[in-house]
């Protein structure tokens, strides 16, 4: 059954109203109007920039000094809709874009900012574009529409024959069933958060030559023949920055022609030089003081791709705060001191609090860790300094797939039927709001797998997870607590939240 987009949009409205009420909690986040980076502004991108947010200050650093943005392909509007890359990858928002910033832009521009371009900045181009409700997914959840070909193509552009069928069960926005849209028209629309374009050397690092989740050595880049990390894009549909940016120029900027080699080099150069992380916390602590290594500078100078379990433990940046000397403690207010201790405890909880990970493809199958397997947050978030996965991070956490995902009536729902082997955890029929990596691999075993993101700059870029399921940092912890019946104490939850707020 698929329902007309207009009727469903009306039915969904009350649910969105409820969401909007909670928006105050995130309104203080991200770029205030004066921090908005306009496409084609011609300003200089300073070597170090600080942006306030509700949890302190985010710092953005550029290796090798300031960048002149006039004529720079990342910053100039290259296509028909007036957007640049920077429109959705804003420095104040850790080179992503928070829902709060989208709301500010809506208010400031009366909905006319190129950010809200019909192609993907609205729930669906068929909706009346002047109405706020037609952009609710971007405004409330920070989501852009991503239209993928069906059947799919692999990262190298080759067509893939999927081993599953897809049907549209619910289409609140029309982009999976209106004329020209949906599987029958050769495409599928999912809705995703922009992933931060910073600290890229970590996301591109090849720590091991094998992808143990897929059971192969890593595939080779068509550009330079070197192994690809498999750690970019929610569905890994782009294996390299070049493939990714051509896709972005066409899809997001509506550029009429592909980026030139010079533009590709320019964007790559910028992407590889920009680093970001929180630099101060809400209590005025400098996160790189008293023996700690917070902030982007440490990211810039550290070597990427290391497995925390055999080297520098993940989030040991804050280990020194476990035992502050009495002299150090005396210089802090009680609140500052307690916050630092909480952050250090949070890092321990992240690494050491064990729980049973169950029915998560990529971890519990096909790789042989066992289902269940006892481990902690760091099992999946295992790269030193960054908290992404050293191996390609396609894991099904359940964020987009039933019954593990939260109800999100404003998102489409698909029914996947595996033609060959059933899915080891879901069976033959799967209900999902975003098939994730399966849209690249064509395998029903990969339905719901989403590539782990980096964990940096979180305070600047709520909401979280690829579909914005978690409104705030507490929402992340609560999701895991529900998903894996972890049973965190209130203190452990707060410690994890505090840790994540300083990354």
């Amino acid at each position, binding site marked *: 059954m698929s329902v007309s987009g207009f009727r469903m949009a009306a039915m969904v409205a009350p649910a969105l109203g409820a969401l909007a009420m909670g928006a105050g909690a995130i309104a203080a986040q991200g770029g205030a109007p004066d921090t908005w980076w306009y496409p084609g502004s011609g300003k200089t991108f300073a070597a170090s920039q600080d942006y306030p947010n509700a949890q302190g200050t985010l710092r953005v650093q550029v290796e090798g000094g300031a960048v002149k943005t006039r004529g720079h392909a990342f910053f100039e509007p290259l296509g028909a809709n007036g957007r640049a890359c920077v429109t959705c990858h804003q420095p104040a928002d850790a080179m992503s874009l928070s829902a709060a910033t989208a709301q500010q832009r809506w208010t400031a521009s009366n909905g006319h900012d190129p950010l809200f371009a019909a192609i993907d900045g609205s729930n669906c181009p068929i909706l009346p574009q002047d109405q706020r409700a037609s952009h609710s997914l971007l405004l409330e959840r920070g989501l852009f529409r991503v239209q993928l070909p069906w059947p799919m193509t692999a990262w190298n552009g080759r067509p893939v024959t999927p081993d599953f069928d897809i049907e549209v069960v619910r289409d609140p926005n029309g982009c999976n069933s209106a004329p020209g849209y949906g599987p029958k028209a050769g495409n599928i629309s999912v809705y995703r958060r922009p992933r931060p374009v910073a600290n890229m050397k970590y996301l591109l690092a090849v720590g*091991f030559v094998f992808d*143990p989740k897929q059971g192969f*050595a890593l595939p080779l880049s068509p550009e330079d023949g070197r192994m690809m990390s498999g750690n970019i894009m929610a569905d890994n549909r782009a294996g390299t920055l070049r493939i990714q940016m051509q896709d972005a120029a066409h899809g997001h900027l509506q550029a009429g022609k592909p980026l030139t080699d010079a533009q590709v080099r320019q964007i790559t150069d910028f992407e590889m030089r920009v680093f970001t992380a929180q630099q101060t916390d809400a209590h005025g602590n400098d996160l790189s003081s008293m023996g700690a290594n917070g902030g982007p500078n440490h990211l810039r100078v550290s070597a990427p791709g*290391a497995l925390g379990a055999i080297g520098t433990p993940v989030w040991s940046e804050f280990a020194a705060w476990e035992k502050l000397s009495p002299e150090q403690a005396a210089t802090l207010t009680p609140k500052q001191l307690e916050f630092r201790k909480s952050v250090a405890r949070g890092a321990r909880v992240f690494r050491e609090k064990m729980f049973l990970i169950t029915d998560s493809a990529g971890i519990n199958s096909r790789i042989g860790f066992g289902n269940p397997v006892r481990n902690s947050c760091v099992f999946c978030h295992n790269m030193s300094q960054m908290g992404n996965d050293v191996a390609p991070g396609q894991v099904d956490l359940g964020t987009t797939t039933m019954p593990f995902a939260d109800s999100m009536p404003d998102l489409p729902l698909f029914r996947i039927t595996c033609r060959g082997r059933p899915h080891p955890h879901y069976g033959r029929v799967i209900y999902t709001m975003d098939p994730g990596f399966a849209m690249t691999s064509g395998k029903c075993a990969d339905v719901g797998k989403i590539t782990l993101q980096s964990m940096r700059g979180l305070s600047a870029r709520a909401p979280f997870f690829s579909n914005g399921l978690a409104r705030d940092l507490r929402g992340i912890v609560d999701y895991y607590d529900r998903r894996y019946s972890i049973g965190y104490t209130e203190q452990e939850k707060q410690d994890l939240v505090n840790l994540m707020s300083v990354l």
Partner: protein
Amino acid sequence: MLRSVLTLAALAAPLSAAAADTGSLLRFITCPVYRDADSGKKSGCWLAEDPATGIRYDVSLSPHKPDWNYAVLVEGRTTAQPETPCGAPVLDAVRTSRLYDIPCTRHILPAEGYPGRRFVLPRRNPQPTSVPAPSFAGPFVDRSFTVYFEFGNDFLVYQYSDWLIQQAYYWMLSAKPKKLIITGFAASAPETVSGRVMAEPADLALQRAQTVATTMARLLPGIAIETRADPSTTGTSDAEADGIPGQAQRRVEIRAVL
């Protein structure tokens, strides 16, 4: 059918029956049980009861661990190791192949005072790219390497098959072979295990060869590769099969031709 056999046999047989007979080979199909022991990461226990004897074994040392929703083909050798970690006699070496066409009711036991095993990095763990490849001294002659699989599939076993391939790859970086002949094998001769006739499909032999060929082509771009298939159920005496005949059959041989 399987389920009822299991229930009948569930009433505990004397545990000491196993220890008496160290080193003997067991092969059975059963539903695995997870014991929620906690000595940190990856420390939980996997238990599996042989329906023929009613003895529940500790199969946690398998490189590829069970899924509690599916039966496993257990292949392993009895030992005299203490039963203290998981409260059951230990099979070592042991393999637990997941049989996705036999569903099981998931069952979890509390730790009941058993500690499980603290995780130690297995000997067969692939090195990160930050570790330089060891170099081998010539002169070199043609050489074969073997990679192993679980029953019924072509999936590279983490911290086992991948490590074996990495050893081969390291040697090849020094020896610079001109060509690889990659032969896949399948254990297609039917054998009855716990009342079920078990045979790998013959075409799995070629599939395994192709899977390994894909990986070798990525590790050694441009090298000539020929794939072959031998579904006739033969074994190898290679020590890395850990003395488990079924494991020695489910393999791929990579012949490096100089």
